[in-house]
């Protein structure tokens, strides 16, 4: 199914090592290779410290890989660029710009005319349900609203690859689920053939099951599994109870060392 799609992201033997303060070498990402076709929604899952955030930082161009090659859209990446948008774990919305100016910022950097970029920004603010606060300062918004602004900013900038680094980790249950809908609606907004490629880092298994076309699992810097999620969209609460989904969930929990209730004694790590 995905073979017909062009390759959007290609990682070949990518590694990243850090030198800790005590001088010891730590390997955050270990010889990782994979290919993500255009339009796919991929979740990177793993315990904290498994290297998934480091991998995203390298894809964003904020970190250099120690070894290996990263290509996006067929071209080797060098440094950050507007072709790859990133929603950070912590709030990154500029507090000194009003909401609308934040959403326009990437377009402004790329020299889009003021009237045109305002119109684009308004469109995306409407998509994330924030039209009523376009003139507000970020400090006047809640944590969930700030995430909406960041998502609108990144989508408005038009990059074909979107990376989200545990974006909803700090939010409450209800807000998180609302933002899943916002994100999936935006992803679908341009029609199935024009979907952007999404890399979504999370340690929440249910979040990955609700969002992903494919879940790739990391542990201690290694890619340990790669699981397609075939359940139809839009997914509901019931989708997560389908036998396939439950099986995937057990598999993921086993990878995280959490599946204590697995029947049949197959809970070996």
């Amino acid at each position: 199914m995905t073979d017909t799609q062009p390759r959007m992201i290609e990682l070949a033997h990518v590694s990243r090592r850090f030198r800790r303060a005590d001088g010891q070498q730590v390997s955050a990402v270990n010889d990782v290779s994979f290919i993500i076709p255009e339009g796919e929604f991929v979740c990177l899952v793993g315990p904290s410290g498994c290297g998934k955030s480091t991998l995203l930082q390298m894809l964003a161009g904020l970190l250099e890989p120690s070894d290996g090659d990263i290509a996006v859209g067929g071209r080797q990446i060098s440094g950050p660029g507007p072709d790859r948008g990133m929603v950070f774990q912590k709030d990154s919305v500029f507090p000194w710009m009003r909401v609308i100016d934040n959403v326009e910022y990437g377009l402004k950097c790329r020299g889009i005319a003021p009237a045109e970029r305002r119109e684009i920004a308004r469109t995306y603010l409407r998509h994330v349900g924030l039209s009523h606060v376009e003139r507000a300062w970020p400090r006047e918004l809640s944590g969930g609203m700030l995430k909406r602004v960041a998502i609108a900013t990144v989508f408005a900038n038009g990059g074909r690859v979107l990376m989200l680094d545990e974006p909803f980790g700090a939010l409450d249950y209800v807000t998180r689920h609302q933002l899943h809908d916002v994100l999936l609606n935006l992803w679908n907004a341009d029609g199935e053939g024009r979907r952007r490629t999404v890399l979504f880092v999370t340690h929440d298994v249910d979040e990955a099951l609700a969002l992903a076309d494919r879940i790739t699992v990391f542990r201690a810097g290694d890619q340990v599994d790669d699981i397609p999620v075939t359940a139809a969209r839009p997914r509901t609460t019931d989708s997560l109870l389908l036998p396939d989904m439950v099986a995937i969930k057990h598999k993921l929990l086993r990878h995280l060392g959490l599946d204590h209730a697995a029947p049949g004694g197959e809970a070996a790590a």
Partner: protein
Amino acid sequence: MAGGEQVAARVGDAVKTAASVAGSPVATPRTGGAGHALRFPLRSLAAAVDPLRLVGLVLVVAIWQAVAAAVPPIILPSPVSVARRLATDFLDAPSLSYYGLTNPNLYGNLLYTTQNVAIAVTVGAAIGVVAGLFTARFRLLRAVIDPIMMTAGTVPILIAAPFLLIWFGVGRFSAVSLVVFYVVVILYLFAQRAAGNLNPIYEDFARTLGASQRRIVLDLLIPATVPEILGGLRIALAGAWGLEAVAELLGSQEGVGKVLEVFAGATDTEGIMACLLMLGLTAMVVDTIAGWLVRRAARWNAGLTGERS
């Protein structure tokens, strides 16, 4: 179902927002510059008639008046006579012309001092801010400049005055360069700290959005540091008045400091206190304007608004 959740999301977020900013409605469009300009005199007027502030002022004046009634005017003139003296001397003080002052009035000398303070603060702030922002971003530069500024900051600046008088004479330049020196050190520290406090996540986000280094300086570094830098400017300004006046006192042909020196020579306590009152009132007015500017520049930052004084 999805539509319903969407609405619930908006309502939920809106309620949270309303709770967190109690009293500042988000949805209403903000008033523009005209609205702020109109509110400014009203707000400072309201601050001026704050009954508690008035109590303190009235108390000081009352004690002053009581003590003045008990001692001879040459030791402590009464507040009323000082105010009257300021009113008459402000536009015309013929006695000053005997001492060779160009302007035989307080007004002209106040203008001279104010100009010097304005020049010194402008030049000093420009140097200090640029140096502070640059050193915050380039570690090598910081390693070179930091020790210089730290040394300069620990030397009591007034003791450089005789030295500057030898170099530049009794003209405008020596007093101004003294104040410039002081302002540079303060704003260097404020600008550097402000830039250092900028969370690196903003720069990372800007880079992923496609911002160039130039854009990062223009759109991130400068606006993010403006409130803190203006706060430093306000502090520098407060000190600048005193330093300028003392520098003039030590050697100048004009200015409030020179007038003070003349009055002191003539043991004219009333004249001295009139000068002090004038300088104090001027500094207060300028500080109020500066405070308003800080609040305006920091509108986006609730933590700074109205808390710098």
